[in-house]
């Protein structure tokens, strides 16, 4: 799909730069690989520090 999903547009309009930065990050193959390697049951402080993220 070439056009952005309306939810993504709404998120960028509503949340500004953080939402746009997220759209850039989630396209990064290195991030995708790192995320895929996470154990969802274990907190990964190094992952959060590496990518500048916090997960609720």
């Amino acid at each position, binding site marked *: 799909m*070439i056009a*952005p999903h309306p*939810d993504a*547009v709404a998120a960028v309009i509503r*949340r500004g730069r953080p939402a746009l930065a997220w*759209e850039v990050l989630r396209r990064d193959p290195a991030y995708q690989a790192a995320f895929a390697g996470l154990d969802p049951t274990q907190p990964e402080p190094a992952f959060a520090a590496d990518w500048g993220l916090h997960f*609720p």
Partner: protein
Amino acid sequence: MLPIWSAAADPRVLAVRASPSGGRDQRNFEMIREAGRVVRGSAGEHVLVDRGGALFRLDVIDGTVLAGPVFLRFELPDDRRLEDRLAVVRAFVAKPAITRHHLQLAGRLQALHAAEARAAGASLREIADGLFGHGDWPGDGEHRKSLVRRMIATGDRMIRAGPRAVLDT
């Protein structure tokens, strides 16, 4: 990190009950789509929502906002703080003002998609049609083609620079 005041102390904190959304006429609240944070307390969740610098605080006295879209019921006791609370509720449910800055950011999101589509093999014309709908190609003075080329270049720059460049600028 600053604490979040409770509704008992600050009239601008809205006490809400959260239940799973479902009704057609109900307005959904989705924490995952908001900027902010949730602190779990003994009496429920304390929520901070940041909408472009406009801060809203919710005390969730029943249910949770962390399990997907919810329908909120506001707790509005008729006391001397009612008007304050109503003003906050009106601001909370109002559609956010869309500024030129936010539209520019949405344009950069389009650029990101244009670059992604190009990398996946889409033609310039396909990208233009996808982003703007069908139109003359390449357009008077090739303006449509030029616009798509500029968007692809912008998107490529954003991808190369990474997310922190977006946050820093």
